[in-house]
């Protein structure tokens, strides 16, 4: 086995960095945002493209999970129908705290062009949303940007502060 010796004094001083627990935790959280795959309609294609190699979400530490139990951000990509609303809420409830929601596309934000009886007119009627991502459909770059905005938001918050229950609507 090769001996691996580093002369810290010779390189750049001691191997210590000072930080706060807050920023350490937030650094960890914000750089490993695992979204719950939640594609509902055409926007989901853009979300998949964002996960693919061309736009490469992995470099953000963002890996799509097919389970709510291990994911901490829910990207609602597409039209939420009223029949589906209950399951959407149930999956959201199953996600562990802390959790965030990105509402992707006009349909998820406001019901979009589906001004009808069967479509939920904005997913914020059933779950609290952190980032609204406009567009029909938003490009993968936009989703990347939304994710970066969310990371920024997470880095700013206190890691241990008890978050008040999020307000609906």
């Amino acid at each position: 086995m090769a001996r691996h010796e580093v002369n810290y004094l010779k390189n750049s001083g001691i191997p210590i960095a000072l930080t706060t627990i807050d920023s350490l935790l937030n650094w960890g959280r914000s750089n490993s945002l695992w979204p719950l795959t939640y594609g509902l309609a055409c926007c989901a294609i853009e979300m998949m493209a964002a996960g693919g190699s061309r736009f490469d979400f992995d470099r953000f530490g963002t890996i799509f999970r097919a389970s709510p139990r291990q994911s901490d951000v829910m990207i609602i990509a597409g039209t939420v129908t009223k029949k589906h609303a209950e399951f959407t809420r149930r999956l959201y409830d199953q996600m562990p705290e802390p959790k965030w929601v990105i509402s992707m596309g006009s349909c998820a934000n406001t019901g979009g062009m589906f001004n009808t009886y069967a479509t939920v007119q904005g997913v914020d009627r059933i779950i609290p949303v952190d980032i609204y991502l406009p567009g029909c459909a938003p490009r993968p770059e936009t989703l990347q940007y939304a994710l970066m905005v969310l990371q920024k938001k997470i880095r700013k918050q206190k890691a241990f502060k008890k978050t008040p229950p999020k307000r609906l609507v």
Partner: protein
Amino acid sequence: MVRQNKTGLDIQKKAYHTDKFYRPKEIFKHSIIGTPYEVIFNHLSYEHKIYESYIELGTAVFWIEKSDLLPIVKIVKSLGYEILSEMSAIDMLELKGQFEMFYQFLSTHSNNTDKRRIRIKCILTPNESIESISGEFRCALWSERETYDMLGIIFEHHPHLRRILMPQDWVGHPLLKSYPLKGDESASWYEVDKIFGKQYRSIIGPEQRDSARVDEKDTFNFARIGHEIEKGGQTPPVLEKQKSQKALFVKNLDPSLSKVLKERL
């Protein structure tokens, strides 16, 4: 409909059709006598009553008695029409006070090359049920569920007549012409009632439909564009304002005297 692409004709600028009382032309109907379909007609009319029969766009249409449906479907199947390509109902409640059931059959049999498609139609009054044909054509299992879900028609002897598109506890049948497009009250609160309970209605508030939308057919709201008022302010009576600066020879419009035309005089 795909519109013709002619150079020099600016189709994009034309409205699709603007006539409020536009009625599409009736499709020309041929007599069934003397066509290959006459054989089918003879088979069906041998024991059952056929009210009307004609050929419409190459499809033979037979109007039958509702109670004859199952035996006729059996005959049709034995004649080689083994595919039920579509079935549903048409809501004619406003026009005629009834539903029209239609069943489209397709034959791939080599004997039927010149008579591929037939349509069986019958009349159903509301609150009446109809025999299920899912015993003969299994694809009707789903079509009949959809018809039940969307129009509220009950099919007798269907093994599991449940909703298929809408949730099980949905109120109303959305394909009825009397059903509002934006849903009734229970539709607009459906997800709130289901997830949080009725007491949450006041917290979440009503659905926010697209308020920036201008409906050019809505003359009442459209007329107020350019006459916007502050939030909470009183709407100035537009007609009153006109009255004060009445010009010579101009008659004031009294909305109470105006008539809304149901059809062209």
